[in-house]
């Protein structure tokens, strides 16, 4: 954001009417905690009293950034706005997904899980193309909460439902990761090895090999 979005003239122009401030989140932990920062970059638009209007979670290009901020200032696409729209259209998968995503960006994981589950319930066959994403996100949220057994079950369920999803390879990696974190090193090693065989050109090969090295001593001890 620093080298691209914040140096674009259309973003600079916003600074005529908006006060800009940078916060190094890992140093200003009190402020980061107060605003429930889930990851970086996170940009929060606040009113003049410091109350959050809404946030942008992750990197966005300058044009998108300006559009989102201008919309937020008009009350468009904010959390409250999307909530109202979903209340009026409770079968709308797209709105449910936007709500889940907004809650996840605020570290409100229980609310995010609620809406991701709603998506799977509304569209179990993934006709809208959001259910695989929602199931994967549900598993990832368990991982964020460090509940490795729940995450393991959720990733397995995801693989069972959507084995051809573009997120399947990542899920295949998280399954042995969850086994390892839950203490089942043998199963973790077996699945990591299987991954290397089935995905010889994966960009994650090195990461998997490192994980195998980390786990090997502990299994050698048990043998």
């Amino acid at each position, binding site marked *: 954001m620093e080298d691209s979005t914040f140096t674009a003239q259309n973003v600079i122009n916003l600074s005529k009417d908006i*006060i*800009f*401030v*940078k916060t190094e989140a890992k140093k200003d932990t009190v402020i980061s905690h107060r*605003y429930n920062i889930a990851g970086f970059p*996170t940009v*929060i*638009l*606040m009113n*003049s009293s410091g109350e959050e209007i809404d946030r942008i979670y992750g990197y966005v290009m300058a044009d998108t950034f300006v559009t989102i901020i201008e919309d937020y200032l008009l009350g468009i696409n904010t959390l409250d706005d999307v909530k109202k729209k979903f209340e009026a259209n409770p079968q709308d998968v797209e709105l449910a997904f936007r709500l889940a995503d907004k809650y996840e960006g605020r570290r409100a994981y229980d609310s995010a899980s609620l809406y991701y589950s709603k998506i799977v319930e509304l569209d179990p066959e993934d006709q809208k193309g959001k259910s695989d994403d929602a199931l994967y996100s549900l598993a990832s949220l368990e991982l964020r909460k460090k509940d490795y057994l729940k995450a393991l079950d959720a990733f397995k369920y995801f693989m069972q439902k959507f084995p051809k999803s573009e997120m399947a390879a990542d899920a295949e990696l998280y399954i042995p990761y969850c086994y390892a974190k839950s203490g089942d090193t043998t199963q973790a090693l077996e699945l990591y090895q299987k991954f290397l065989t089935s995905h010889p050109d994966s960009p994650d090969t090195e990461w998997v090999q490192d994980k195998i090295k980390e786990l090997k001593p502990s299994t050698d001890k048990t043998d």
Partner: protein
Amino acid sequence: MKTTIRAGMILLLGLIILSFCAKKAPNKIEWAVSLEDALKIASEKDKPIIADFWSDG
């Protein structure tokens, strides 16, 4: 002829005044030094705040 020159001069004068009055577009963002500082300025000027939470790793 005189009328054309006078009209031209009025137009030129108008353009000069306009260029002085127009708010100059900033060429970079002036960042507040801290969130506390930003909140103070925002409250005084009744302006919203954009807070960028970043991390280098």
